[in-house]
């Protein structure tokens, strides 16, 4: 009888243990929630930088003056990645330019699509397939008045118990006519990773 109870208990324990294995479960998550999976540059850092830089630019008195009666035309030069990580900085500039565009205060020219636009206009002008009176002519585009550019730098320190990464993102707005930097700001992010005991 005792052996039977023992065998049953062991069987139950094995069944329970087998339920504790790693099972892959797919779930949709909140793309805007704070993500702390690891210490590397992540979605929260990207959203924080884009949000803080856009807010700072839009709140600036200089920008208030620039956008009082007109929507200045800007272009975004690439952000220089000076960190030791591979970071898609174009994604940061995309977020910033989208937010600025949607604010209704600025307009943008996209230098990354110049060759595609030229190809399309060339097709309209020279292929003979587009009504010449309706084809978009060369030489009518407007140029940017201001340039956004910046840097992303990091300082990483770690020992066997703790890792610390500090990011600094700097963004500047230059008046292309005068060469003056009209606005600049920087934002900082500090992330640490340390060993923690299991919570009960």
């Amino acid at each position, binding site marked *: 009888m005792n052996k039977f109870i023992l065998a049953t208990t062991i069987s139950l*324990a094995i069944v329970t243990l087998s*339920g*504790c294995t790693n099972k892959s479960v797919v779930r949709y998550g909140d793309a*805007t929630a704070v993500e702390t999976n690891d210490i590397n540059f992540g979605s929260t850092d990207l959203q*924080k930088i884009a949000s803080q830089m856009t807010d700072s630019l839009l709140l600036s008195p200089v920008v208030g003056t620039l956008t009082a009666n007109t929507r200045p035309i800007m272009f975004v030069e690439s952000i220089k990645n000076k960190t030791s990580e591979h970071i898609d900085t174009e994604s940061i500039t995309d977020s910033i330019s989208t937010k600025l565009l949607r604010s209704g205060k600025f307009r943008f020219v996209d230098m990354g699509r110049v060759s595609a636009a030229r190809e399309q206009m060339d097709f309209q002008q020279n292929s003979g397939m587009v009504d010449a009176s309706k084809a978009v002519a060369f030489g009518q585009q407007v140029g940017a008045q201001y340039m956004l550019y910046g840097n992303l730098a990091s300082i990483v320190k770690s020992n066997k118990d703790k890792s610390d990464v500090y990011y600094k993102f700097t963004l500047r707005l230059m008046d292309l006519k005068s060469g003056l930097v009209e606005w600049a700001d920087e934002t900082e992010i500090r992330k640490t990773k340390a060993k923690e005991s299991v*919570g*009960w």
Partner: protein
Amino acid sequence: MKNQLSVMLILLCFTFVVTGCKNTPPVTSGIGSKRITPEQEYAKYLQINNKQLAAQLHISDIKSRKSNDLLAINLSLTSSYRKSQQLQYQFQWFDQAGFVIEAGKSPWHPIELHGMQTLTVAGLAPSTQVATFSLYVREVPKKFFKF
């Protein structure tokens, strides 16, 4: 017999412990404010969905003003807890008719609130159409196994 009983007891205890070996969903409730206009007194519109967090943290002030035609908010959070808290906050923006602006795009911002600290954070409306706003504060979920 005694040995067998001991083994059974140990196994049973182990079984109970192991059954708790799962990732429980994190607590995502917090404190915040209902949709308010800049003119309304924020204190009347506060909502507490997490009493444990409300005992450690309270919204001590909400200020707003128009800057460059955009609604700017200052939110002051005060800790009544002696240890640091890892928190995240989010603003949501609505137009005059109460429709949400930029639905699902307003990010949660992480902050560390030190013991007994009062921290003011800022938010800026994404467009000039914003007339009302709401905000919410909750903890950053810890990646612990909970039993």
